[in-house]
Structure formats: C-alpha cells, structure tokens
C-alpha cells in the first residue's frame, strides 16, 4: 500500500494540476482541482495504513487521519460549490467559460 499509494498520490496531484493549468473551460478547471484533492486522501491512507505504522498491528486506518480525511471530503465539496457559483456568475457576465477569455492586460 505504502509504495504504490505514494506513487499514485504524486501522479494524481500532478495530473490534476495539469488539468487546471491547461484547462479551456472553467467548470473543467474546478473539477480537475478535485483530482489533486484526491491525491491528499490517497497519501493520508498510505501513511495511515497498518503496514506503515510502528507498534502492534491495528485494525483500521489511523483514526486521526480518518477524521481529517472524512471531514475534509465534506468541506472540499462545499468549496467546489462556491467556486462553481463564481463560474456560473462569470458565464452570466461574459457568456464564456474560457479562463483565458477573462484575462485583461493591466495598465
């Protein structure tokens, strides 16, 4: 779990950010962010799993990390909703969802 888990975590983090950086659609951009988010859960799981812990074998994943991750999952989706609300409002104002259409050269 530990070795493969950490590799998958690094992959998910990077591919999610790649989606964000190269996105041509704001909805897509916000959803790509949730892929990077998943990498933190996979890492917490890899760290909290039995084999990675010292001491006698425990039954389940470390409760501190479970508490952190299970709360974070719920919080993350509310933040995603807030970002999607901004996206909806952007679309109302500009009629476009292209992140690069929002750019404006500063004075």
């Amino acid at each position, binding site marked *: *779990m*530990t070795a*493969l*888990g950490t590799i*998958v975590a690094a*992959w*998910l983090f990077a*591919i*999610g950010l*790649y*989606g964000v950086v190269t996105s*041509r*659609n704001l*909805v*897509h951009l916000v*959803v*790509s962010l*949730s*892929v990077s988010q*998943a*990498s933190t*859960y*996979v890492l917490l*799981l890899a760290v*909290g*799993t*039995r*084999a990675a812990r010292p001491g006698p074998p425990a*039954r*389940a*994943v470390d409760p501190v*990390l*479970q*508490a952190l*991750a*299970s*709360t974070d*999952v*719920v919080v*993350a*989706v509310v933040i*995603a*909703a807030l970002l*999607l*609300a901004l*996206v*909806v409002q952007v*679309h*109302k104002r500009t*009629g476009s*969802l292209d992140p690069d259409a929002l750019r404006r050269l500063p004075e």
Partner: protein
Amino acid sequence: MTVLEAVLLILVAAGGGCVALVRNPLRQAMAASLFGSLLAVLFAVARAPDVALSEIVVGAVALPLMILLALAKIRGGQR
C-alpha cells in the same frame, strides 16, 4: 498490501487521469462520479470506513450533481 488494494489504486490513478484529461465537462461530471465511487471502494477496502462513507456520498453524488446543475444554468444561458 492485498492484490485488491493494488488493483483499486491503479484504477483510481487511471480514473483521476480521465477526469483531468476529459475536456467535455458533461462527460467529466460522469467520470468524476465514477472516480468518486472508485475512491470510496478503495477506502472501504483499506479499512477507512468513515472516509469511504463521506466519499461515496460526496464524490459520487453531491459533487457530480452540482456540476450538472452548474452546467444546466450555463446551457440555459447560452441559448
């Protein structure tokens, strides 16, 4: 690590790649729902039931639903 966990991890990695690389937001919403379900199964198998419960409710249902509603508004405005 069990074989099942390894297979699930690889599926999660592939699913995450799909979500980030699928460019059509509607298809992406479906991919995100699948990705959330896969994560939930992984957490359940790896004995993190609390996280699995959160993820199945949020990742597989709530988030995709919000994406669909946002897209619905946007489509409505485009016509």
